[in-house]
């Protein structure tokens, strides 16, 4: 071992009782203890304050997030990022409006139930009003029930639903009719006829201005016995 690590003493260091007495100072230990305890208390208070501040901050942030979520559900914001891209007349962004109407037999329209629960816009800054028939939904459903006829030239008698989507343009006129579920060309023709001749609609509006709206609807064809 080259480097010396230990200091070896052959005899114990000489120290008298008087010297030891002079080194004793309990008051200093006491004073240091009190200072250390005070520092610890201050640190604990600061630590507690920081923790409380973090908890309160978190609670406030959480509340704000909840309020934002609630507002989001109240305001119907048109999804402008989803324009309809069918190669038809107007290439404009449209509003999605889910409707499910069964024409035969006539039932309480599901759409009406949905409308009753539909949230009211919370802020006047961005108000969206859904499209609706001028004479109301009951009149519309009565029209569907009366006008929708089972095609006479069908080879195989079938029953079922024809589901379509169409766009109500700014004038409240239907266009871009798309079949989601078809029973055959004869049924599609009948549905197109009924939609094109349906009663007048009030177009959807955003902040008072008419905007296109997408409507989904189904028609039930059943054989009357």
């Amino acid at each position, binding site marked *: *071992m080259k480097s010396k*690590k*230990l*200091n070896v*003493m*052959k005899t*114990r260091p000489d120290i008298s009782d008087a010297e030891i007495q002079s*080194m004793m100072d*309990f008051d200093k230990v006491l004073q*240091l203890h009190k200072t250390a305890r005070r520092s610890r208390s201050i640190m604990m208070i600061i630590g507690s304050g920081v923790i409380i501040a973090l908890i309160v901050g978190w609670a406030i942030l959480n509340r704000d997030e909840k309020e934002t979520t609630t507002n989001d559900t109240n305001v119907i914001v048109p999804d402008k990022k989803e324009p309809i891209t069918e190669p038809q007349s107007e290439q404009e962004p449209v509003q999605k409006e889910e409707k499910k109407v069964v024409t035969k037999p006539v039932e309480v329209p599901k759409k009406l139930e949905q409308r009753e629960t539909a949230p009211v816009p919370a802020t006047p800054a961005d108000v969206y009003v859904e499209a609706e028939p001028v004479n109301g939904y009951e009149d519309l459903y009565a029209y569907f029930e009366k006008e929708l006829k089972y095609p006479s030239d069908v080879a195989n008698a079938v029953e079922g639903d024809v589901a379509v989507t169409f766009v109500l343009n700014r004038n409240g006129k239907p266009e871009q009719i798309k079949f989601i579920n078809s029973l055959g060309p004869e049924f599609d023709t009948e549905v197109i006829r009924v939609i094109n001749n349906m009663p007048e609609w009030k177009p959807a509006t955003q902040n008072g201005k008419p905007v296109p709206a997408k409507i989904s609807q189904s028609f039930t064809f059943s054989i009357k016995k």
Partner: protein
Amino acid sequence: MTEEKQTEQTSTAISEKDAIARSKTDPNAFRPLYEAYFKRILLFVLHRVGDKQLAADITQQVFLNALSNIGKYQLRGLPFSSWLFRIASNQCTDFFRKNTKMRTVVLEESSIKELYEDLTEEQSWSEWERKLPLVLEHLPPEDLQLIELRYFEQRPFKEVSEIMGLTETNTKVRAYRILEKMKKIFLQRK
């Protein structure tokens, strides 16, 4: 032991127990404990640092730590003196870790004789005296501490184990292993 001495020891034990209990709520009650143990702790530290003023400063720190942690001390656990020696030992280890000051070892002839007998009597005494510091330099701080407590300060294994925070059996096993290691180093050294 005379009856008078026994009575004196019992009353000391009661007053120490009482002082410890009261110190947990009133730091002023720690004074008799400080006065009773200051000298022993100071010498313990002095034999490791070799400097009186430095030893006095470290000793003050030992008692400050003891007072700050008196609430954690269990009356049913190890003796209060061993608890203080353990704090002092840790304080010294901490000091040498943070400072470049050289560790001191007191090797009095009377205290190294037992180790000489346990280790190797094949070598001459003069050879032993010459080589021992070199062998000790090879030991890690914890091993040196154990040998110092057991052989140079001639404390019983029970107290050594209490100061080092080990079981008595483990302390004995470790001491045996350290002696074996020392013997090898001793024979390798020229």
